């Protein structure tokens, strides 16, 4: 079983972020970066597939700055076999450019399965997995919570509005992971040491023409302070009126 996992370095969801002086990027000073949590599910799933098969290879591929090597090594510490960084000055906002570069790297790799997170928690574009599948001419199943593979075929469950959808697809395919797919392991200390010795190839990123650019970025407006409209039953009509006319929630 040969599996590729596409991963991304993102700011920790518990970090307080600031917009940089240019007004369209993140101020990275003091920000902790992590392996995108949805990609972590993808890495874990790939490792479990390889372990269940008793043989195979798990390769992790990232598009990012040089700092993404650390993120790749996190996946290697979890147990992936080798890493590839397609090094860019910055990750382009255009998901298609990222997908093109990943497709070029993966197309002749002979992978049985390509896993991605369903989205990156920083830009939340949901684009790269499906676009990558399109570029490779492979079926794509997104936001998967259960996956089984057998005899060149995959069956996946996806959570849809109010229920579960079961889909079947031939391999190879691109599958994007959702929360619930598995419980990712911690990188064990021996794994962290072993990761230093695993191959990590760095290649220049080439995504072709970039069609989308970020022109501005801002923090959400501070929440307004609550206000007390009155006390007891007498205040109810006014409260209902405000909820209906001002807040428009009734």
């Amino acid at each position: 079983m040969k599996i590729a996992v596409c991963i991304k370095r993102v700011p920790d969801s518990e970090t307080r972020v600031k917009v940089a002086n240019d007004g369209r990027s993140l101020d990275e000073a003091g920000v902790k970066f992590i392996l995108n949590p949805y990609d972590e599910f993808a890495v874990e799933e790939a490792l479990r597939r390889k372990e269940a098969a008793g043989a195979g290879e798990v390769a992790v591929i990232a598009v990012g700055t040089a700092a993404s090597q650390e993120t790749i090594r996190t996946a290697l510490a979890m147990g992936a076999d080798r890493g590839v960084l397609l090094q860019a000055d910055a990750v382009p906002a255009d998901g298609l450019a990222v997908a093109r570069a990943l497709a070029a790297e993966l197309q002749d790799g002979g992978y049985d399965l390509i896993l991605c997170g369903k989205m990156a928690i920083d830009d939340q574009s949901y684009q790269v997995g499906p676009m990558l599948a399109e570029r490779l001419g492979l079926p794509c199943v997104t936001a998967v919570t259960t996956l089984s593979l057998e005899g060149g075929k995959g069956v996946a469950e996806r959570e849809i509005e109010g229920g579960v959808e079961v889909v079947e697809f031939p391999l190879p395919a691109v599958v994007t992971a959702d929360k619930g797919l598995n419980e990712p392991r911690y990188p064990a200390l021996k794994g962290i040491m072993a990761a230093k010795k695993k191959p990590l190839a760095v290649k220049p990123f080439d995504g072709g023409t970039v069609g989308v650019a970020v022109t501005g970025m801002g923090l959400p407006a501070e929440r307004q302070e609550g206000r007390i409209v009155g006390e007891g039953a007498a205040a109810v009509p006014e409260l209902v009126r405000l909820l209906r006319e001002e807040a428009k929630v009734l």
Partner: protein
Amino acid sequence: MAPRFQGIDFYDGDSLLSEEERAVRDTVRDWVEDELMPVIAEHYLEGKFPRELVPRMAELGFFGANLPEEYGCAGLNNVAYGLIMQELERGDSGVRSFASVQGALVMYPIYAFGSEEQKKRYLPALASGELIGCFGLTEPDYGSNPGGMITVARETADGWVLNGAKMWITNGSTAQLAIVWAKTGPIEDVSSIRGFIVPTDAKGFTAKDQKGKLSLRASDTSELVLEDVHVGKDALLPRSGGIKSPLMCLTQARYGIAWGAIGAAMACYDEAVSYAKNRVMFGKPIGAFQIQQVRLAEMLTEITKAQLLCLQLGRLKDRGTVTPQQVSLAKRNNVDMATECAREARRLLGANGILAEYQAMRHLANLESVYTYEGTHDVHSLILGQEITGLSAFG
């Protein structure tokens, strides 16, 4: 739900750590958050060591992590090892004590004084948690003066016979093997002290849980009695000799304790900051009162100093130039500062501070033991005094 523990890093100490040191720290931090924190208060109240956590700790590589990979260990440097101790003690001193004893007081002496055969036989099994060990040095009447011990080992035709009693032995009732220190010569001959690997199921060996502890309640502390315990010739640690050997083990453990104390202090500080921001009294958060701000400022200052102290101590240890006196200074300073942080945090938390639901008083009670074990605070003062003046104030 309380936010995940993010560490305290006022001086960007992270930038002084390597990528793998940070990765090791983060793995232990996540494990403590996810698997230790939810169960620790209950174990503490019940006076029970969370033994069910041992296999996971072993699997992740927490035991003897600074020993070489060829013996099934992680082969980490000493800074990474220290960070493991820090994060474990952020959870609980008793759990850190378990790992300290297993790694620094059982695996280390086998590694340092054992034969190749002993190392191959025991170290991988101890690293994997298949075997649990304890360390028998202290006796009922010989604590700060271990050289006075009266436990003896007499050589026979086919091995050794041990007699004596050991006290305050962490993991004593849990362990399958004990590293027991005994005199092989006359009782006044300190140079005749040797170490032995004693199986705890040997005839004549008994371990008894020490009841009534108000500190380190999530840790097994036992008394060991050895009555004509026969062991083979291969039980002797061949390269051990004199009181220096067990003291070398203690230096390893004290090194980890100096780091561990930072963890306990960070836990208390973190809890105190969060409480100070949320607890409202006289119409404002208590963190807005000067007296609480002074408390928090003191804590942060002392934690930051202790972090920088330990980091340099670890770099010296990795360089191979660290002295036992430098370790003494760090153990003495950091445990004392952590105890103060825990006490001040407990006070800041007011009445809530006495509940097991919060961490401060559990840490405070634990740290009183840590203050006393592995060389009391006062003994470390004398070690430093001797180093400074060249004059011994012992005895």
